[in-house]
């Protein structure tokens, strides 16, 4: 009986295997050389109503063009085009003409002003694929035009790469423009600067809570460098650590429950964690040297910090309970200001190399490479999407805030406020 079934089994097995065998044809490899920068045309939004404000339309196009150029992914060009008959919603762009002109992507827009009320719409088109990739419509005031444009830039990057940009998030920094070192806020491109603190004292090392609502910083407003917390919506400021000695370089944990900081209440400065309320201090480092500038890894499991226990300050890393301390920076050069990249794979820091320069290394301390080489450059912080690094530099005279791509290219001054500007922090990061 079983012997008679063998041919049936064999036939069934063959039937099952045949399609698999047919599908297992080897894949044909398609390769191409180079890595093209996409070419994007940005057309100023066309008016949809009776009010025509070409300067607004041009400003929107300039914002998107600059954002996209700084992303490093594409070359942008502002182009004028005839308004689409029937409006943006009904008409199709002339793909063939744009393709002939050599563009890969196209941004078109439409705006309508009624008094101060602004309606703004942007659309992103793939010229080659001849299809619309993204559309966003914004309702607000005329003053929101730049914010809306930055937001669409973020959306373009999200559409093209899967990771949104950081262009609509502000940068906090310390400026002496008012005569005192106070915390200021500006758009990532330096526009719309406004003062946040008015302590008429020295304010240093701002850091933003993960939910973006509260800012911590060290202020000498009462004589001692104490750590303060400020609610950005209400402006309410409370002291959260005023222990004797230094209360400096506060850093929020990624979950917002703790703050790591340097305290010198027991003599030399050591790294502690405290609850976000300022209670429950927990000492993490024990040494005869100074330990400052804690920086949480994005997953909260590790803390990078600066210690001079080997002589010159060096960057170290430890577990979030203080264990397993390891040195990351190499050589004897002065190294400080560690900042984790948002994906946790790299650490940017300052190192003395013919003046202070910005370096980046892998999180294990390997592959250290230099990004800046002009002037004194300090305090790097990553943009939340990890594409850009903001830092302070005195290359043009007084200290100012600069931005560069994560590979060191595209170094651009962004702060326009007078005085000395430093201690930048890109909102939205850990």
């Amino acid at each position: 009986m079983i012997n008679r079934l063998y041919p049936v089994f064999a036939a069934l097995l063959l039937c099952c295997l045949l399609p698999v065998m047919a599908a297992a044809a080897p894949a044909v490899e398609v390769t191409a050389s180079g890595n093209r920068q996409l070419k994007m045309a940005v057309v100023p939004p066309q008016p949809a109503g009776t009010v025509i404000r070409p300067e607004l339309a041009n400003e929107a196009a300039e914002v998107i063009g600059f954002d996209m150029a700084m992303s490093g992914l594409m070359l942008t060009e502002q182009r004028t085009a005839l308004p689409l008959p029937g409006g943006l919603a009904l008409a199709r762009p002339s793909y063939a003409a744009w393709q002939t002109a050599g563009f890969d992507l196209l941004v078109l827009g439409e705006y309508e002003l009624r008094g101060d009320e602004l309606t703004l719409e942007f659309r992103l088109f793939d010229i080659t694929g001849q299809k619309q990739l993204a559309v966003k419509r914004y309702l607000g005031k005329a003053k929101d035009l730049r914010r809306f444009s930055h937001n669409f830039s973020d959306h373009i990057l999200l559409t093209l790469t899967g990771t949104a940009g950081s262009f609509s998030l502000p940068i906090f920094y310390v400026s002496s423009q008012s005569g005192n070192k106070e915390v200021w806020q500006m758009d990532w491109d330096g526009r719309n600067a406004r003062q946040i603190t008015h302590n008429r004292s020295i304010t240093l090392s701002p850091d933003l809570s993960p939910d973006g609502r509260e800012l911590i910083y060290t202020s000498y407003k009462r004589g001692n460098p104490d750590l303060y917390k400020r609610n950005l919506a209400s402006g309410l400021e409370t002291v959260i650590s005023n222990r004797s000695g230094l209360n400096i370089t506060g850093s929020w944990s990624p979950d917002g429950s703790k703050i790591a900081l340097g305290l010198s209440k027991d003599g030399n400065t050591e790294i502690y964690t405290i609850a976000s309320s300022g209670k429950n201090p927990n000492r993490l480092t024990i040494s005869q040297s100074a330990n400052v500038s804690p920086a949480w890894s994005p997953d909260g499991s590790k803390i990078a910090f600066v210690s001079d226990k080997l002589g010159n300050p060096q960057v170290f890393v430890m577990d979030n309970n203080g264990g397993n301390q390891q040195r990351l920076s190499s050589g004897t050069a002065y190294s400080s200001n560690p900042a984790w990249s948002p994906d946790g794979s790299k650490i940017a820091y300052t190192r003395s190399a013919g003046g202070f320069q910005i370096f980046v290394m892998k999180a294990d301390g390997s592959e250290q490479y230099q990004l800046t080489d002009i002037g004194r450059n300090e305090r790097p912080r990553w943009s939340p999407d990890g594409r850009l690094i903001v830092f302070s530099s005195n290359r043009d005279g007084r200290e100012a805030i600069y931005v560069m791509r994560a590979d060191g290219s595209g170094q651009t001054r962004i702060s326009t406020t007078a005085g000395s500007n430093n201690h930048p922090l890109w909102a939205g990061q850990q």
Partner: protein
Amino acid sequence: MPEPAPVQTTYYVDVVNMPVAAPRAGSPQQAADTEDLAPPPPPEPAQPEMSAPTVPVTSSPAVSPKKQTQKQADSASFDQQMAKLQTAADARRQAQRLDELRTKVDAQGRSGMPKGMGSQAGSDYTAYIHSRLKDAFQETISYQSKAPFVQVRLVIAANGRLLSARFEKSSKDQLFELAVRRAINMAEPQFVPPPDDQQYEGLFVFRPEGVAQQ
């Protein structure tokens, strides 16, 4: 409006498949009425008109002229015989080889030849699609990770239209995926119907040149 730029026309010359006008892998079967149009069999090799060259003979004072003439005639006759035999053997070998090739083609077909299925190794159609994709990919390649790749299964309908492009594996570099999508879109208008008017399915792996397989 963008300034019009001169249009550059690209001409594709498929060197591999020069004998076939279309990149399809030939017709499935040769029609009966086209047999008359088939090329004639190769002609029989013609007899050499000239006699075989004679071997130069050095004069010897000991041999009489009459004997020498007879010897020369024998030698020429022998050479002629040998040349005939050689030519006949060559012709037989050539005819036998042609018969073998005809038998092979009749039995299974060959890509680019009558009865070709387009599915043989080195199939013309796959090569054609690959060539179009490669050209387009050169125009669109863009990526942000170190070793991006995308494996795409293309299904092309009998009429040459792209039915589906399924991304089966990817290194998750979205910019690279977009570049591949754009390359496929760009290449699609140049797709032609697959051989035998059958649906074509092919697996293609896109990656930057010089990036090793993961």
